[in-house]
């Protein structure tokens, strides 16, 4: 499985930029942004992403709701989802995984950690 298109869903523009930059350093792929769950569903509907990176706490539709909607949509149900959140208690992680997350990253994290998680999921198309 190759990583060509990533959808980052976070209400924080700073966080979107941080994650984009970290991804861009190690992966050659298109990166799209959404500010909440509703925007994310619209983006994913236009084109199925290879990976979604989702924050939990967002106004409008939150991350958990988004994940469960993605998992119940036939065209998107297999999209890997990495949850990125500041809530790192075992109960929080469990909630995310039960909703259908593939992996969990607790903020603040280092770019190397993100790279390791994605490396585990995808073949590298082009190494920078």
């Amino acid at each position: 499985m190759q990583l060509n298109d990533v959808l980052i869903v976070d209400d924080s523009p700073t966080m979107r930029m941080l994650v984009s930059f970290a991804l861009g350093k190690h992966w050659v792929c298109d990166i799209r942004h959404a500010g909440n769950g509703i925007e994310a569903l619209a983006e994913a509907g236009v084109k199925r992403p290879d990976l979604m990176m989702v924050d939990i706490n967002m106004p409008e539709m939150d991350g958990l709701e988004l994940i469960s909607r993605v998992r119940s949509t036939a065209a998107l149900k297999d999209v890997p989802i990495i949850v990125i959140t500041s809530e790192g208690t075992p109960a929080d992680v469990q909630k995310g995984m039960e909703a259908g997350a593939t992996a969990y990253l607790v903020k603040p994290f280092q770019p190397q950690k993100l790279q390791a998680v994605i490396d585990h999921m995808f073949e590298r198309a082009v190494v920078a």
Partner: protein
Amino acid sequence: MMATQDMLSDDRDAPDASTLLKALHNGDWRVRKDAARKLGDASLEWLSDELAERVSSEHVGERNAALTALIKQGAPALPSLARLLGHEDADVRNLASLAIGLIGDLGAEDILEEALAQEGDPNVRYMMVEALGRIGNPAAGSTLMRALSDEEYVAGAAISGLGSMRWVRATDDIIALLGHEMLGGIAANALASIGHPRAFLPLVRAAQDDPAVADIFTDAAARVYAATCDRYIALYAALRCTIDIPIGSPVVAATRRALARGDQPQTWSRFAEWLGFPLDPPTRLAHGLAEEPIAAARSGARINRHDVSSLLIEFASDDASARALAAEAFATLVEGPLDRRVLRGLAEHEDPVVREALARYVRRTCDDAARDVTAKLLEDADPTVRASAAGIPPIEQIGDMAQAMARFFTDESPLVRAAAARAAAQAAGSGARHLLAGLLEDTDDTVVVAALESIGTLKLHQAAPLAYELLKHESAAVRAAALHTLTSLSSCEVLEAASTLLLTDPAPEVRAAAVRLLARYGTESARDLVWEALTDDDVRVRRAALEILPEVSGPGCVALVARLLVDDDLHEEALRCILEYGELAAEGLERKVAKDAALYALPVGVALVRTPGAYAESAMRHLLRDERELVRWSAAAAIICALDATTRAAVTRMLPKRESDEDTAALLGFIRTTA
């Protein structure tokens, strides 16, 4: 007129609010969203506290819905949110900070700065710093500068905030972070927003140092280089002609990629012609700016790299048009800082065009040396100069803000009074904002409109009654501005009353504004009014009604919108609107609850055509075999819409000439129009 709080009394709304609060816990996110929206429209203190309590709920959906409602309430929710900043749970403090930032009230930075100084959790500090950036009050600039030395995430938010508030003094600190493994991209973006020319070469170097992310740095360099010109063209020209970067370097390659993507209207071949264009001497730049933007863009590098003596010579010309063009180049291209004597000389130039250009230069560059001339420009005899100078940020540094503003508010020129009204919206913490209401009685319409806009931005709730009175003003522009301002100040009942009043306004633009406002609440009466507006004589009003229809109406509106598919002016918008409803319509069809399935068929069909897969094909076959002719034609129309233009035209020619009923005729008419 009744004040907002009177119209939405605690007693009358207590049962409704209680039901809505319960709905925040509902399992369906749409129910939670709807409740949050309605609760957000009511700015009652006790309700804010109730919502704030739910921000610490274990139920993530309820927590986010409460947060959404608080954000929608705006400034009145701030006291409740401020209390949450002291909550024992870091996640709650985090969410409260997020909400305060999204509310964006200019006075909230004090609350955040105080809490930030006490905060131990880096995630919460991150959110607080980001909130300060979102609010964008320059008063928080020093706090954000200090946050640059905090942990990486917090520093990232600080860089973002400094960029969005264009804090020029942070330029060097942010340049130093361009090589940072994690923060480099965000630093580049911030430098692009600040736009100080000093960041250009470091950005180019960063792009060359790290080819993997060259696009990010190159884009930022382009934005820094030519904010007023065609950025990639200007950047390429600068790289090749002025700085002489080799053509194979990453930054040039990234620029070429940007050009090849077609981000700009100019084509690559046209650019090649320009590339052979000889560099103009700086004195010809000003002419180039008007006649040939690329020449000016390319030569802008020379202005930035040399002194402005050539332009000063041009300023001494007898030719007024030459002075005007030179002034334009000065105002938009010259980088600072400039010698104080030069600045003083320009401030005393006899041509007001030159003095006005100087004011714009100061606004753009925030050149510290130029502050000396700001006071002089504010006292200028020419109103255009005073108006331009009134926007120099932060104006409060020149003296007592309220006193200065009071003087501008009574200036003889309406241009200056309007500029001062707009500047008041940026002058946080100033007493001048309370003088704004006085301008609502100004004799000049542009001044009243500017004052209304600033009152809305500052959320001066006490001015709501005055704004409501202006709905009856003789000027359509004032009536529309008053309505817009009320959206920031009033409850849904006031807004519904205002919108209803203006739906019969003689000016179509005012009626359109009134229709758009109806989207803020989804009451049945509002929906009826929007439906009525779909048949308005003026296309602007119909378009406004169509745009907001999905917000005030459920899937049933598809049937209404479908009728607009044959509206000569609106059929494209109608189709887009229906596509947005594709998912809801598909749900309705699956559950077989749609009474008017024929009218659902087109949107469903279009949605299915756009969604490849076995289910879509099966559903489409089902629609094509439906016993109702209109359903079959709707499905066919959806397929035809998805064809390429040539095939579509050919298929359309094969359509039957005679139709069995009026609806089918309308549908076939639509297909022919589209083809």
